[in-house]
């Protein structure tokens, strides 16, 4: 916010107040997120600043302790599988919704969106109840299915948003130039909407990788994901592996965020 040359003293004070406010807000928003990063490099087993000497012992712990390692691997496996499944189901559905015109489309949309609206606790409890009934309680498959259900709406939304901007005459042009429908889809439609599909897949991965509540109900000890493991250890003031885990999650989140921003740029570059 620039200070206009005609500003009176109170106006100048006002502008400076707003600038100070913005600075404090940035500190409030970004500050807390990074506080545990230095702790994760401490070599003392205490949740305590200042740090006397640095080491990588907690990262070592993260990848060698059987519990933590299993949690990391579980998280990666579940998030990857759920993201792939959600992307396949979500892209197909987004396409169908884009092409089809039928009564009750709104109702179908409502069904697809419910997982985004229902509070996580209710989702977790319900799916725990249902998965146990069909013998999928405490299984990886059960957790993957649950995360797929939660993530698929995100894929539908992002892909639908890209499709709504897709110019259908491109498909006509492809057909006119001799491409059969499948080729036209593969060579023309998919590359143009690829950014939306990738964005959806990233959102799905992030959702699965970040989820605590649903996994807390559905996962048995063998399926424990990284966030669940962290949640269980949250009140342990001695073991700082959790700070290393949080740092790893933070770095991964940032990578996913950069990925999505990159996709946005790419989309702008190909948009009409």
């Amino acid at each position, binding site marked *: 916010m620039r200070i206009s040359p005609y500003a009176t003293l109170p106006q100048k004070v006002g502008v400076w107040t707003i600038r100070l406010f913005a600075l404090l807000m940035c500190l409030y928003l970004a500050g807390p997120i990074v506080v545990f990063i230095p702790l994760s490099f401490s070599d003392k087993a205490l949740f305590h600043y200042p740090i006397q000497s640095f080491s990588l012992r907690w990262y070592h712990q993260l990848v060698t302790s059987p519990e933590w390692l299993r949690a990391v691997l579980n998280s990666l496996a579940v998030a990857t599988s759920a993201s792939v499944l959600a992307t396949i189901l979500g892209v197909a559905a987004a396409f169908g919704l884009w092409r089809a015109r039928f009564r009750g489309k709104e109702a179908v949309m409502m069904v697809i969106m419910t997982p985004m609206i229902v509070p996580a606790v209710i989702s977790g409890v319900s799916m725990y109840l249902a998965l146990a009934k069909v013998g999928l309680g405490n299984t990886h498959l059960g957790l993957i299915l649950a995360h797929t259900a939660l993530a698929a709406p995100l894929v539908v939304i992002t892909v639908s948003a890209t499709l709504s901007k897709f*110019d259908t*005459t*491109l498909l*006509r*042009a*492809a*057909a*006119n*130039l*001799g*491409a*059969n*429908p499948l*080729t*036209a889809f593969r*060579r*023309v439609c998919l*590359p*143009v909407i690829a950014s939306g599909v990738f964005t959806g897949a990233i959102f799905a991965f992030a959702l699965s990788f970040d989820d605590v509540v649903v996994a807390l109900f559905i996962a048995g000890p063998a399926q424990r994901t990284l966030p669940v493991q962290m949640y269980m250890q949250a009140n342990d003031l001695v073991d700082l592996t959790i700070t290393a885990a949080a740092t790893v999650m933070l770095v991964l989140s940032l990578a996913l965020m950069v990925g999505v921003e990159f996709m946005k740029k790419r989309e702008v*570059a*190909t*948009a*009409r």
Partner: protein
Amino acid sequence: MDAIVRYSDVSKTYDGVTSVVRNLNLDIEEGEFLTMLGPSGSGKTTSLMMLAGFEAPTSGEILLDGRSLARVPPHRRDIGMVFQNYALFPHMTVSENIAFPLQVRKRPAAEIEQRVKRALDMVHLSTLGGRRPLQLSGGQQQRVAVARALVFEPKIILMDEPLGALDRQLRESMQLEIRSIHERLGVTAVYVTHDQGEALTMSDRIAIFSNGAIEQLGSPEELYSRPSNAFVAQFIGENNLMPCAVARTSGLECEAELAGSGPVRARYGDLSPGQTDGVVAVRPEKVRVRPKSAMDSSENSFSAVVEAVVFFGDHVKLALRLAGGQKLVSRSLPEDTATFGVVGQELTVGWNTQDCAIYAPRSRPAPPIPVAFASQA
């Protein structure tokens, strides 16, 4: 039979109530440049889309080289098309766009490379093959679209308002370029536009569409000098249309009365036998103006008052009012009217019988006719 495309009784309706195209019969000859001209909503684009295969006729059929297209999907028709907004693939380079139709036809790589190069040369874009469409100007994109539509050597190329997005100057140079490509390749071209100037300069033949049907089909000269009805007379070029009462028809001529101004003799237009109401059509450049005192030798001669004078540099237009209140415009060389072309001046106007015609009145395009009624017509 040398018609490469034949529309046979083609009708199209989207809702079952109103016809977008009505009983269209049209032969397109091999190698010609045919333009479908008409106001928006006249059915010209739909007719083109049916030929390309993006719309299906509700009834009737379209033949290509004597074979029905009813069961041929768009990608098997081998008809090139330039879309209104070009529809270039944004994720491919210019070369990749042009190579696309050859790739999906599984041509060998060497041939593809060679033909893409030739196509780029043809539209003078040899140096821009590596660019993305969005990095090109409108005119360049347009040329890529033309090159892409022609590279697989289709027998027909369709163009749907291809110059609509360009500015005026670029449009004129692209008109000449498209025309010259057409002449060089000898390809049959079907061109859709609502711009009559574009149609007149480019086409071998023009089909004038209105309300889903063809009003007149002919060469630009025919359409201009011998419009077959009041709609065409009004749609192509400028025309003065004045209501009149038809008195007598004899052979190719008829006599009528311009109320309050006097009798008029004109060519016979499209009047029904016995029809008494009509409109006289005479083009401004055919209207001669003389000082009031001068004798006019033309068959049709009236006295008029000048209401306005508009100077255009190479010509001047006078807005005139006849004694009976009819209004018309004349167009003449500035030096010819210098002495008497003054507002309020009385003068004599006239035109030859061969330069005017009497048509059945059609003040404005009739509303779309419901199918149920059309079938009884």
